[in-house]
């Protein structure tokens, strides 16, 4: 169906300003946080009510039009990248916190609500929503559910999947599914887990009930410098071996430390090969206890410098450096490309060494920030898109890092999702049979494949073509499929 006909039909139930189709109006929607991938959609719709969304879905279903959902567009894997012949549906206008139940410790919210807005509203009751992606001032809770987003506190407090109770989801046919409940579990299969992290491929999330936690009484941070990345990695293992689950445990490598210090003057040690930020939270006594033990462990692990925050201002200042890693990358390089592999922590030194070698090979610098507690690496590859061929080089470099993560027993994405970006590496991480199961799951919800087509799970055809180029462990991937 032509865009014009679709737009005409949208006009029968959407106000004029809720339908965009002129190129200049579509431009702001051409990409998400991964700006290397751009595509204008056929049209953008900005519904305000559930009723409107149902009609949009029904129309797309009836006309076989691809539909891509978009929250705040901060995704880093091209998940909300529009489809050229499709409709992009922004959920940004559904931004109400419907209800907070302080005694039950839950909030019922619309998908367009910003992550941080939930904690701000819950603060009145001494509660907060735990998952705190660095993008939390901007990203939407609907997007968080679609990506199963994490944050610096997720080793202790879990990811999105651990912190939601119930979803209302509309299928592409416009049918409403109530998934989960106000109770801690529900009857039947765990569709709540299946929906979380499904990247807008299975349904449109239109309401979320999240769990709220009591705000810890106190938080304190230990910043430790090491002259060797390996020592820093061992320090992380030693903290955990001592039975401590820190509220946050983040590592930065030398080039990150320098970039950040130049930018913010957080007081980081410029001679360090790695800096570890380790946070304790809880009751005042608990924090005092734990901080003392953490300091001792850092000392024994070969720290070259230890600094403990004395007050909230200092704690925030020390964190600010870590949180500014992305903008700092933006200052030292015109462009950067953020990777998101996860590895078993014990393989850290080896993987960092590998990244270093790749960095030399490609002639591109790479900053490493690392959710050290849970093994989630964020190498930031620095490049200049204005130099011909450099983006392609950065992408190839990134792809190699992801393959290294798979070989180290890890995964290509810890929290940013596969989207459009990592679709090829999915062919390496999963076998044909496993990808087929993913396609089957998709078909159970969206048999026509209209929701976010082409994302998250590669077609077997695509993998076969790639397999012809990648020979792995001496064996050909997808040998069972015809080559095209």
């Amino acid at each position, binding site marked *: 169906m032509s865009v014009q006909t679709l737009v005409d039909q949208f006009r029968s139930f959407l106000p004029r300003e809720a339908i965009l189709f002129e190129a200049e109006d579509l431009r702001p929607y051409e990409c998400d946080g991964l700006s290397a991938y751009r595509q204008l959609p056929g049209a953008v719709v900005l519904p305000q009510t559930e009723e409107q969304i149902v009609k949009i879905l029904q129309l797309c279903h009836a006309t076989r039009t691809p539909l891509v959902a978009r929250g705040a567009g901060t995704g880093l894997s091209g998940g909300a990248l529009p489809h050229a012949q499709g409709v992009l549906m922004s959920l940004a206008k559904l931004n109400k916190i419907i209800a907070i139940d302080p*005694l*039950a410790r839950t909030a019922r919210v619309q998908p367009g609500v910003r992550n941080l807005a939930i904690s701000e509203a819950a603060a009145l009751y*001494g509660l907060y929503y735990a998952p705190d992606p660095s993008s939390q001032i901007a990203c939407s809770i609907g997007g968080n559910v679609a*990506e*199963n987003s994490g944050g610096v506190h997720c080793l202790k407090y879990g990811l999105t*999947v*651990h912190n939601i109770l119930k979803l209302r989801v509309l299928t592409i046919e416009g*049918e409403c*599914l*109530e*998934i989960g*409940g*106000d*109770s*801690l579990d*529900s*009857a*039947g*299969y*765990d*569709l709540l*887990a*299946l929906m*979380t*992290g*499904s990247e807008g491929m299975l349904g449109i999330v239109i309401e979320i009930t999240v769990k709220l936690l*009591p705000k*810890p009484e106190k938080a304190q941070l230990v910043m430790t410098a090491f002259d060797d990345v390996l020592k820093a990695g061992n320090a992380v293992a*030693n903290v*955990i*071996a001592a*039975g401590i*689950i820190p509220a946050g445990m983040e590592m930065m490598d030398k080039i990150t430390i320098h970039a950040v210090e130049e930018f913010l003057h957080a007081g980081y040690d410029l001679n360090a090969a790695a800096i570890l930020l380790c946070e304790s939270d*809880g*009751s005042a*006594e*608990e924090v005092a*206890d*734990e901080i003392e033990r953490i300091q001792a462990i850092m000392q024994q692990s070969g720290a070259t410098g230890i600094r403990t925050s004395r007050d909230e201002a200092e704690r925030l200042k020390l964190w600010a450096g870590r949180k500014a890693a992305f903008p700092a990358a933006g200052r030292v390089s015109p462009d950067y490309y953020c990777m998101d592999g*996860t590895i*078993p*922590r*014990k393989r850290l030194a080896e993987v960092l060494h590998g990244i270093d070698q790749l960095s030399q090979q490609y002639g591109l610098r790479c900053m490493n920030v690392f959710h050290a507690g849970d*093994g*989630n690496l964020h190498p930031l590859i620095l490049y200049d898109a204005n130099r011909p061929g450099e983006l392609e080089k950065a992408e190839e470099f990134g792809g190699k890092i992801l393959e290294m993560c798979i070989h180290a*027993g*890890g*995964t*290509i994405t810890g929290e*940013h*999702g*596969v989207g459009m970006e990592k679709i090829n590496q999915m062919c390496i*991480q999963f*076998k044909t*049979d*496993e990808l087929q*199961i*993913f396609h089957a*799951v998709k078909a*159970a919800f969206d048999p026509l494949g209209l929701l976010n087509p082409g994302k998250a799970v590669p077609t077997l055809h695509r993998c076969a073509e790639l397999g012809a180029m990648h020979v792995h462990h001496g064996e050909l991937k997808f040998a069972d499929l015809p080559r095209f």
Partner: protein
Amino acid sequence: MQVIIEQYQALIRAAADNKTPLQIRGGGTKHFYGNAPAEQPAAFLDTTAYHGIVDYEPTELVMTARAGTRLADVEVLLTEHGQMLAFEPPHFGMAATLGGCIAAGLSGPRRAVAGAVRDFVLGLRLLDGTGKDLRFGGQVMKNVAGYDVSRLMAGALGTLGVILEVSLKVLPKPPAETTLQFSMNEAVAIERMNQWAGKPLPVSATCYVDGELFVRLSGAESTVRTAQIKLGGEVLPESEAFWQSIREQSYGFFQPGQPLWRLSVRSTAAPLVLPGKQLFEWNGGLRWLSGDDGLDAETIRQLAKDVGGHATLFRNHGSPLPVFHPLDSALMTIHRSLKQQFDPSGIFNRGRLYPDL
């Protein structure tokens, strides 16, 4: 071990070819849980042959083990390293296996604060209904590549496939634990449990039964001590044994031979007026109901639904009533479709969860 997998695959393929039911069996300790099979299974797949720890590195907080490993053995090993399965799964017998624990999806007293079985599943290896050997998730804490098929298996009662191996997140055992006891009525207990859950207190389990509220505090010595002073109450001497008896349902309330209902509801729901006796866990989010007669399934289910939850006839003692809360038709369609995709011949544990799954 590969030989055993091949034997399982042969069993599955034979069952799929003949479209005959295949019952997956671990230690048999949770055999009582779920609907009785509509027809006698033509064959059994015994998971206990496939056992053993595959990988356990305490500092990675991850353990990978084969499904036939005894749950008790897993917990002994973890205890040796000062760690635990934080969801405190019930064993219901020495023979309980890890695979059965995941498939049943049951969690114990710590669930309300620590999370459920599914929250700790990081990845698994599975044989589907055509005998394909598949791996989903992994051995790392954060992984969003592909749909979360691993967690989908938790609580699926084996209807989607045979779990071969599972990787779980494990946690350190808290150094100190104390249980406090308070006398109060139901309504007050519900309010108290929920108020305390909203405060930064180290409450790791709650139970209310016979007019007494039991609150377990876990954490650092100092934290537990301070919280104890704040909350008051009497210290329960046999703390560990008490929680063990709740977890394993050996406590007096769980009288053998009586139908036992499990109501999972909004934790703040006012006392549900029903005949029989009740015991609460999870800050009031889990309400066990025990009684011989006068319990009407329809009434129970409606009441549970009205307060945001669902009701399960947990121990039915041969009653023909369906065990699990009926799903609405849109959800049931998705369930059928998933079953069809994972187990196209409908061989695995047919009818155990719902009649046509």
